[in-house]
């Protein structure tokens, strides 16, 4: 008898262990649900972890108001179908004051609409542990993060002073006001996520599949102009091309890629040949050297 297990089975087993551990050791856990492919996988893992019971924590979506329409529709459908409570947190004050990435720059915009709204949402629910779908292979400062990422009372990460984390034994001890961000997908790669979605038939936002769209080409980015703030300027005009999203974020800041991949196998094939990382099309990561680390220190996921 061979006792080998596949790469994906090993990753799944590790993730289920993490999710169960958190649900058992913390008073008020919550799962960040960002609607993207990683969140879709994380949600399925949560279903598996507690089967045949329900997911014992709510989902929290940080809504910047700049997400794509298809994302919001998908979010509501998924939350209903897994029977989880969905909480939406937004920085309404900043939005009322007209916050957007063009006026504020991506760094400040993210700080207000993502980080601040996230911290507000976590505080409002008094959550002591928050699951996030981030992977270490996404970005070089994420590659440094623990599975249990300790955050002080202000939600900040101290990368130079992380708790040692040996084997699969996690230190869940915190004081009131402190919290832990938990990354059950830490060891998954982009390829693993796609293969798992394919293998498990996990629903994802249709924008991941290539289709003909009216887009705006600006510099190196292909923007899908859904919102008032992403309409073409007088000197720009819309083009039709077949595109898809490799990573889903806010519509002004997450570019599409030209692609023919309209099925999961084709997406996987495209990935095999990809020369650049998935975050290449995210404006936010490139503001300056180490910008992801700076944002995380301030409380970003």
């Amino acid at each position, binding site marked *: 008898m061979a*006792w*080998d*297990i*596949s*790469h994906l*089975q*090993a990753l*799944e087993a*590790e993730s*289920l*262990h993490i999710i*169960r*551990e958190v649900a*058992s*050791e913390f008073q008020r856990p919550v799962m960040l649900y960002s609607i993207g492919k990683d969140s879709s996988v994380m949600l399925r893992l949560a279903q598996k972890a*507690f*089967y045949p*019971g*329900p997911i014992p924590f709510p989902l929290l979506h940080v809504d910047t108001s700049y997400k794509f329409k298809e994302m919001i529709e998908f979010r509501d459908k998924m939350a209903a179908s897994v029977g989880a409570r969905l909480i939406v947190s937004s920085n309404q004050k900043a939005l009322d004051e007209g916050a957007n990435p063009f006026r504020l720059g991506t760094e400040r915009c993210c700080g207000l609409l993502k980080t601040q709204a996230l911290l507000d949402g976590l505080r409002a629910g008094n959550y002591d542990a928050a699951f996030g779908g981030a992977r*270490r292979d996404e*970005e*070089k*400062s*994420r*590659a*440094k993060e623990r599975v249990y990422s300790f955050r002080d009372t202000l939600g900040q990460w101290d*990368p*130079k002073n*992380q*708790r*040692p*984390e*040996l*084997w*699969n*034994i996690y*230190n869940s001890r*915190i*004081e009131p006001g402190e919290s832990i961000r938990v990354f059950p997908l*830490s*060891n998954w790669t982009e*390829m693993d996520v796609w*293969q798992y979605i394919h293998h498990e038939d996990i629903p994802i936002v249709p924008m991941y599949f290539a289709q003909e769209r009216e887009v705006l080409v600006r510099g*190196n980015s292909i923007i899908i102009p859904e919102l008032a703030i992403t309409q073409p300027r007088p000197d720009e005009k819309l083009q039709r091309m077949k595109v898809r999203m490799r990573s889903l974020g806010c519509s002004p800041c997450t570019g599409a890629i*030209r692609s*023919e991949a309209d099925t999961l*196998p*084709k997406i*996987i*094939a495209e990935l*095999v*040949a*990809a*020369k*650049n*990382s998935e975050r*290449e*099309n995210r404006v936010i990561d490139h503001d300056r050297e*180490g910008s992801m*680390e700076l944002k995380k220190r301030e409380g970003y996921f």
Partner: protein
Amino acid sequence: MPAVAGVVDLTRFDVEEFLRGEESKDLLRFTTAGSVDDGKSTLIGRLLHDAKGAYEDQLKQAIRGGEIDFSLLTDGLRAEREQGITIDVAYRYFSTPKRKFILADTPGHEQYTRNMATGASTAELAIILLDASRGITTQSMRHAYIASLLGIPHIIVAVNKMDLVNYDQEIFQRLRAEFAPFLTRLGVNNAYFVPISALKGDNVVDLSKNMPWFDGHSVLHQLETVNTKLATVEAPFRMAVQRVVRPDMTFRGYAGQILSGVIRPGDEVLAQPSGRRSRVERIVTYDGDLKVAHAPLSITLTLADEIDISRGDMISAGPEPASSRSIEATMVWFNAQPLDPARHYLVKHASQMAPARVEAVEYRIDVNTLHAEPVTSLAMNEVGVVRLTAARPLFFDPYRENRGTGAFILIDRQTNATAAAGMIVAAAETGLESAADRLARLVRAVVPQGAHLNLPDEDEEAVAVVRDALKGILRHA
């Protein structure tokens, strides 16, 4: 130019075949180890680059002065790039047609030993680097020692920076002759020595023309071919209960990850601490019931009888796990605040957390000589053997037999810091022990696991070892 996805010839690429190939790949977790600046990050960057494990935009970010600085592929923190050293472990992922790899690039600096241990704890293979131009340092030995304590089954010793010593065979051989006996004393008998230049790529992926005298294999070849059979499956069945799943009155299941062994419906199991036995009724998963499950799968068990089981309990089959509140364990101390027997700690072992006290530090181990030294405390980065008592019984196997049930962490109750990592040696007798018994234990612990009773050759030195051990006993008597 707008971003264009890599051009794939979809007519020629067979995705299903690719996926089948992916499914059949196994996974190797490995780590780097060695002194500061020995070239660990450079080696990893070189491997990622040559094995196409890095994307072009990431490579572009690593260019300094017109050339790729390979260490920047893993040194992802600002402070690391400013200081040119690794501070915390970086995890990277790559695959070759043969295998998938999760690698942990760890810091060499002594101050960050705890981060090295973090990266090494889950590894099945460690690449220990030595700098050919500087030789072996205390830190090289410390890392090799920690790697052996953690029970990493495979060791590659990469003698790096061969380009700085004219690819001189003699220097390689001298370092090997010096380091191999030390590894043997640690119980590591199968270390594979390779001369490399991480910077230039010699013997990293392909064998180098610069060292025709080397008739072994490249680092990548070793990584791809080392045997990764899951030893955990051969050990008896152990599962720590993480959670009781009870959606309604009709279902009561025990969720956990199988730490070792194999389980089938019908198997008799023991639940600790209750001591009650029952039979496995079902192995429940979201994807349907299983006929058989093995480590490291995460499952939910239902049992034939109603017995009291809750989080922290151990379900086992076959030989019973030891059960004791007092244990003897090897510990690596991480905290800046030294071990203090008067302080309150928590032990987290498998799925239980219990208050604990360190009753006594039996001895500290000198990393250079591997001799036991009597001490009353352990300071940061020191290794020693302690006697620890928990408020509740722990259910365990010795770490060298079972990593899953033999490992624990110690948490400082006041600061919540992870103060130490522990590897259980055996249950400790409470109360007074006979001197003979303790001497036997001590000698066993002084002698590295797997090694023979290799007291120093020099009589003087051998006597000193035994004398130190006896001193330790008398101190505690």
